[in-house]
């Protein structure tokens, strides 16, 4: 009876239910804001990101956190809308959470970078620092680069370069298909650039833009692709635009390889299933079989502990761990969580990732320099993805040095730095 009463009391407040770790918080933590979509069309990404971030954070906390304190994540829902993200930015700074993680959706990231830059200019006593986990578009670290923005993921150019470098020698005819917006257009122009540079033998037999999320049946593209004689399709399509494309391709008997950038993200393996097997190659920071393939004990242990939490998804954003490692190191180095000091400490910082590679946060544009993998969706693999029986197997690895490109960033630095 008592239990029921307690439940009743609990129910009585369920209208005002709190997110996450609840009210009984230890006060002595370093709180980090995480602004991401938790409702709306991209809520699944917010959830998946949070899960991986929390795991990465717990790893750092287990090693003692920073300044003797543990980290703690506070989430804010931006609903994948820039305006809403800026409101939540204000909410975070109000709560004195100067370090802000984010990076789902290039539109939101662009708004956040600008917003933080202006906020810092106008509120020099209460600055904020924006750590971008996964928004890849180039302007963020090129023409719009900001001192207060750090990108902890490889950008579009680096991804395309590693894909082209990893392209097998026997592929000489490729077909390009990209979504008709900034990201897809960036991928397309970089693909052409790097093909000309690294693989002049490869011929582009088709170059297509599709409107984002509008095409329900890709079968009309299949004859075009087939006719072109392409051996591989390089596409930045993600979500339904990729899944429907591959579905139509398979149904139409199109026997080619799909070189992608997002097929590994949460939900990707599930929607591909066996249909994507042995034909989908993706560019990624890491996957759950890198450790087992190359016998890296730290990575194997990492994946084992990750899988023990029954996450349902692969830990593909291995850079999330790097983010927290660097952040903890920077806070320790700075001796405080003051955004300016932390930012200065982050510049040029080097840490070793779970695979043993050295990652560098470049000072010039605040873009992380790290190796990238390309992997094939295949079986059998030691650790399958999302319970499909299929999983990722490394095809190639391109080192950080090979992915270091000059930047056009002209950063406006704070006075005296």
């Amino acid at each position, binding site marked *: 009876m008592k239990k029921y009463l307690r439940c009743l009391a609990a129910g009585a407040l369920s209208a005002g239910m709190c997110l996450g770790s609840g009210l009984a918080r230890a006060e002595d933590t370093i709180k980090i804001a995480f602004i991401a979509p938790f409702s709306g069309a991209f809520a699944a990404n917010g959830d998946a990101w949070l899960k991986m971030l929390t795991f990465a954070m717990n790893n750092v906390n287990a090693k003692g956190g920073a300044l003797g304190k543990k980290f703690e994540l506070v989430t804010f829902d931006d609903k994948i809308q820039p305006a809403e993200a800026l409101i939540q930015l204000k909410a975070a700074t109000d709560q004195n959470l100067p370090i802000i993680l984010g990076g789902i959706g290039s539109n939101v990231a662009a708004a956040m970078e600008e917003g933080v830059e202006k906020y810092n200019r106008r509120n020099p006593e209460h600055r904020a620092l924006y750590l971008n986990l996964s928004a890849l578009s180039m302007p963020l670290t090129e023409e719009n680069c900001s001192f207060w923005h750090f990108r902890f993921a490889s950008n579009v150019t680096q991804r395309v370069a590693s894909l082209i470098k990893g392209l097998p020698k026997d592929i000489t005819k490729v077909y390009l298909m990209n979504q008709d917006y900034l990201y897809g257009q960036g991928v397309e122009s970089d693909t052409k650039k790097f093909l000309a540079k690294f693989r002049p033998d490869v011929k582009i037999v088709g170059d297509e833009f599709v409107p984002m999320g509008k095409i329900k*049946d890709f*079968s009309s593209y299949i004859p075009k692709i087939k006719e072109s004689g392409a051996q591989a399709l390089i596409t930045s399509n993600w979500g339904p635009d990729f899944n429907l494309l591959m579905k139509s391709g398979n149904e139409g008997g199109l026997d080619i390889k799909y070189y992608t950038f997002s097929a590994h993200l949460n*939900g990707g393996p599930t929607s591909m299933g066996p249909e994507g097997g042995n034909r989908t190659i993706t560019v990624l920071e890491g996957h759950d079989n890198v450790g087992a393939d190359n016998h890296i004990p730290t990575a194997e242990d990492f994946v084992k502990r990750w899988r023990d939490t029954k996450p349902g998804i692969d830990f593909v954003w291995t850079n999330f761990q790097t983010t927290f490692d660097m952040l903890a190191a920077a806070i320790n180095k700075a001796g405080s969580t003051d955004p300016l000091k932390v930012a200065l400490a982050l510049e040029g910082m080097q840490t070793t990732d779970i695979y043993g590679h050295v990652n560098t946060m470049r000072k010039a544009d605040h873009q992380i320099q790290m190796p990238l993998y390309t992997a094939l969706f295949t079986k059998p693999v030691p650790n399958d993805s999302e319970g499909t029986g299929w999983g990722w197997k490394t095809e190639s690895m391109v080192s950080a040095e090979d992915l270091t490109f000059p930047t056009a960033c002209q950063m406006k630095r704070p006075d005296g730095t």
Partner: protein
Amino acid sequence: MEIVLNPLLNGFVYGMLLFMLASGLTLIFSMMGVLNFAHAGIYMIGAYVAFDMSRLIGFWAALIVAPLVCAAIGAGIEVWGLRRTHHNGHIAELLFTFGLFFIIERGVQMVWGMLPVPYRVPALLDFPLFRLYGVDFPAYRAFMLLIAGGMLLAIRLLLTRTRVGLIIQASLTHPQMVSSLGHNVPRVFTLVFAGGCYLAGLAGVIGGNYQVTEPAMAASLGPIVFVVVVFGGLGSLSGCFVSSIVIGMVQTFAVSIDGSLADLLGPIVAWIGTDNLAGEILSIPVSRVGPLLPYAMMVGILMFRPRGLMGTRDT
């Protein structure tokens, strides 16, 4: 020939899927005057229920049961929801279904999660039926055509050969007349609404694995179905059929055209340059704007012919 035949076939398949959704909507719209915003939501529920059921009792049983579930949901919506808002006018009814769509979309996310579910074509139908100019035509698409065609036939028979069908048909063109003839119009309304939802559910069952079953599937298909219904015209099933096929074809054909306005107006574009908005608009190839054509077609037809292609009344 090969340029034409493949898109023709695929456009037809897509058009038939649209028709399955649109026919139910057009029945509801013509009779009750309600443009049911939740219709695509029901389609999504159909797909998800079919996914769950196909794992429990197999695809074929799901093909029977899932649409019935949707019909039951539809009847519930009509009896407990729409009927109560009826006296507040069509706008209120439309807004009711609009709000319902919000809830369905979020509810589906809550129950089935936010990621796509692996709802796949049954193994029995997972083979290429024939090859056409080197491109396979999957058996499942033929099956879809079969179901859609069968459904078309069934609706026709139902409407022309049964008493209920005759009443419905009369209600399509003269809704006030039928009620004044003393027929139990509320019951007919419920029946039509449930029937429309049944069709949407059926479309969900066979469309869910033809496309991807995910929470955004309704929001992305919904507007297109409206376009089909409005374009085809109120109170006309044949108009609905024609416009489904037309829009299915337009969407699939447009992507195979690479030309742009700039090709036609070469010198003018050279003069404007491509580095401004006007030049940008002109130099976009047709294949990229293809999916927008239906909306432009809808706006156009509503401006000049509000009753749509073959409609009997103004929208």
